[in-house]
């Protein structure tokens, strides 16, 4: 039944984590096409429903990693297969993840076999990195594109941080001018701008608030600067990385700015991150900030559930940790019908053998848009090929 669309499927008998903290034991989930049409203990299954017994299993919404380079990198060290960072001009707003995304990447099935069904993928590097896209880890069409613009601030890019803020402000200001004076620009009657026409165009949806700015920023002072810029330009800000964001938890909560962070970062790894804390997710969540977790990778996206487990280990509640890899990233990425198990939601579901975060737990089945997805991948095929050595050829 792999890949075959069944009209009505019922997953029966599992403990279902809805994603809002509620767990329904021995529940039924009814899937009609792409969507969940019923969930609960008392669900009447229409005639013709294919009933799948998942007694004793655990079901969650598919995990979502909101800050990856998946599909943009096959092998990091092989330049021809690595499209994550174009280098060159620091302003790359026109660059689109959808133009680089390779749905045939062997890296993708390896990640989804550990329960990740959705990612945001975006180029790295530059002051403005490019237009991110959100993909289900099955199929070649994005769910949302552009899903936001990526940018970075801080002391790691070389050169004075002050200068990069000036550049960022200049480009944002020019984009605003450009949007007001497009006619003059076309007639060559506008002053020169700090970015190309396509770059300025790409910034417009950020300025009108229709897509967020995913800003990689770590140091507390830079986060304050970023909050100021966001206010100044009316930008919907998402803090990415945010090593010291916990120190500005109240301000971030007040400004409704979410944070995407690495829950296992706990060291002064660099000078923008001297105050990194392993319990940052706990502190931010308590302050009312929407927190999502990320692996910030392509090849290690599969670690997301382990990272969530480590967030619990650092003091986050299990339900908050689950929200931080399902509901919260869905909300941050503007995925209104993903990230929870509820009527009307897209059926991106993971059937786990136990607690999704435990290392002993395996993914038993995966549904994306109501269809089962293969858990096979290249690493598994290599394992089978070498199950006995020397192999027979």
């Amino acid at each position, binding site marked *: 039944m792999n890949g075959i669309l069944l009209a009505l499927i019922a997953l029966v008998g599992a403990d279902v984590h809805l994603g809002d903290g509620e767990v329904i034991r021995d529940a039924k989930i009814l899937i009609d096409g792409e969507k969940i049409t019923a969930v609960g203990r008392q669900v009447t299954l229409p005639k013709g429903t294919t009933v799948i017994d998942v007694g004793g299993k655990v079901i969650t919404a598919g995990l979502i990693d909101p800050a990856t380079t998946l599909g943009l*990198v*096959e*092998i*990091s*060290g*092989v330049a021809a297969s690595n499209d994550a960072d174009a280098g060159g001009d620091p302003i790359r707003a026109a660059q689109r993840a959808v133009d680089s995304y390779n749905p045939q990447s062997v*890296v993708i099935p390896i990640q989804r076999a550990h329960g990740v069904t959705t990612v945001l993928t975006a180029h790295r590097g530059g002051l403005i990195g490019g237009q991110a896209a959100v993909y289900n880890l099955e199929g070649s069409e994005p769910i949302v594109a552009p899903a936001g613009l990526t940018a970075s601030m801080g002391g790691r890019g070389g050169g004075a941080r002050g200068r990069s803020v000036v550049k960022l402000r200049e480009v944002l200001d020019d984009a605003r001018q450009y949007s007001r004076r497009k006619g003059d620009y076309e007639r060559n009657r506008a002053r020169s701008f700090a970015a190309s026409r396509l770059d300025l165009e790409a910034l417009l949806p950020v300025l009108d608030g229709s897509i967020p700015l995913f800003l990689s920023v770590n140091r507390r002072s830079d986060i304050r600067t970023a909050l100021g810029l966001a206010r100044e330009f009316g930008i919907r800000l998402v803090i990415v990385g945010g090593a010291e964001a916990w120190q500005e938890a109240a301000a971030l909560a007040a400004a409704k700015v979410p944070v995407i962070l690495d829950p*296992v*970062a*706990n*060291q*002064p*790894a*660099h*000078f923008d*991150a*001297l*105050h990194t804390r392993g319990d940052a997710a706990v502190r931010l969540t308590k302050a009312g900030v929407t927190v999502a977790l990320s692996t910030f990778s*392509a*090849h*290690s996206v*599969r*670690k997301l559930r*382990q990272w969530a*487990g*480590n967030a*619990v*280990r650092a003091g986050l509640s299990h339900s908050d940790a689950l929200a931080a890899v399902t509901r919260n990233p869905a909300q941050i990425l503007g995925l209104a019908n993903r990230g929870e198990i509820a009527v009307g939601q897209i059926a991106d579901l993971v059937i786990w053998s136990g607690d999704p*975060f*435990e*290392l*002993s737990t*395996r993914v038993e089945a995966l549904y994306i848009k109501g269809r089962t997805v293969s858990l096979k991948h290249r*690493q*598994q095929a*290599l*394992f089978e090929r*070498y199950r006995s*050595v*020397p192999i027979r050829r």
Partner: protein
Amino acid sequence: MDLIIRALFAALLVGCGAAAPTQPTLEKVPVPLDPAVAVEPATFLAPIEPGRPTLIVNATLLTAGEETPRIEHGWIRLRDGLIASMGPSPAPKAETGERVVDGQGKFVTPGLIDTHSHLGVYARPGVWAHSDGNEMTNPITAGVRAEEAFWPQDPGIQRAVEGGVTTIQVLPGSGNLMGGRGVVLKLHPRRSTRAMRFPGAKDALKMACGENPKRVYGKHRKSMPMSRMGNIYLMRDKWIAARRYQNEWDEWRKNPKKKEGDKIISVKPPKRVLVLETLSKVLAGEILVHIHCYRADEMLLQLKLADEFGFSVRSFHHAVEAYKIRDVLAEKGVSVSTWADWWGFKIEAHDAIEQNLALIDEAGARAILHTDSAEGIQRMNQEAAKAFYAGVHAGVPVTESQALRWITANPAWALGVDGQVGTLEVGKMADVVLWNRHPFSVYAEAEKVFIDGRLRHDTGASQKAPWSDFEVAQ
């Protein structure tokens, strides 16, 4: 490590008048005239004070031993830096002054051991000024030593201990074919690296094959090695030189004097060459070989070189393709230090599989979970668990107690210190971790970590002072 250094080490400790249970008490030996075994002063060493006697009761002991891997309702007594006694209930009565720890529902394991760390040589914060692990000015720098770059103030050290790690091998990086000597350290907070040395542990020779050296030299500098041919050529060239160097010294040691006419005169010893000194110690078995190598065919090439020159490879590191040649590795007695699931960063790391460790173990080779990472080293238990369950889920017959050996007994063997650490055994060093739940759970925390019987980490302690000066009032 040179006998002389150890002798001085022991002599100094005795001189301080403190009991130093974990240090071998070697006889003070006269310094030989051989300059190749030059005296290295063990300056600024202070003994590790033995910790308070401790008795842990009611805990599950996961011993990592082969005979009795698990003792339910066990107790273990730490005294004078050693494991004094242990067993199943009933526990003995606590003695006066003994710290008693209730281990109800908790687990005790040996301290974890990482064969591949760059803590201290790539210290936090990661700035150029802290980048001391790769002397990339020549592809052969076998004479340099990680010990002499290691910064004992790296904030990563304390975090590793908080993850249950008690011993690490610090290696030079893999930019060079022969990167230098690695050093085995006990993770005590100390002012000098020398004072952290695992007493009696041999140094390592860190070698690297494959992409890194040819990229660093060939691609970026248009100098040799530019290819894998160049890699092996340069290595073979140096092993030949090392063999000759060793012969010259053997000859001089045999005949340090000669007759000239009627007189007997001293023969001038050969010139001391640090690169060749390290390699000749490898040939003499005094330094253990650890090779960074990903691809199966390249590991086989290194084994060929080893046979050609008569040394043995103690451990292949990273070795993501070890599963392809696990029968050979088992037969040759080579251990494999690798990750659970780190991969894909270069083409030689493209064929990694999640069952690598389990398959190596199944084949009868020594499987070791290493980290190569200041983040990973804080979760060695989780990483071993991941690799274990990957094997279990794929139907590879591997046991939990075997998997615990991937982070304890097997790395102890690779570092040549399995006689002192790596299992819970009476008489071994009291490097012991108390976990609040089974260490293969993602939620497990190392509650108490003892090194040489000293309580070095305690989640119950009210205020934790940072070990690193860098983190003071930061």
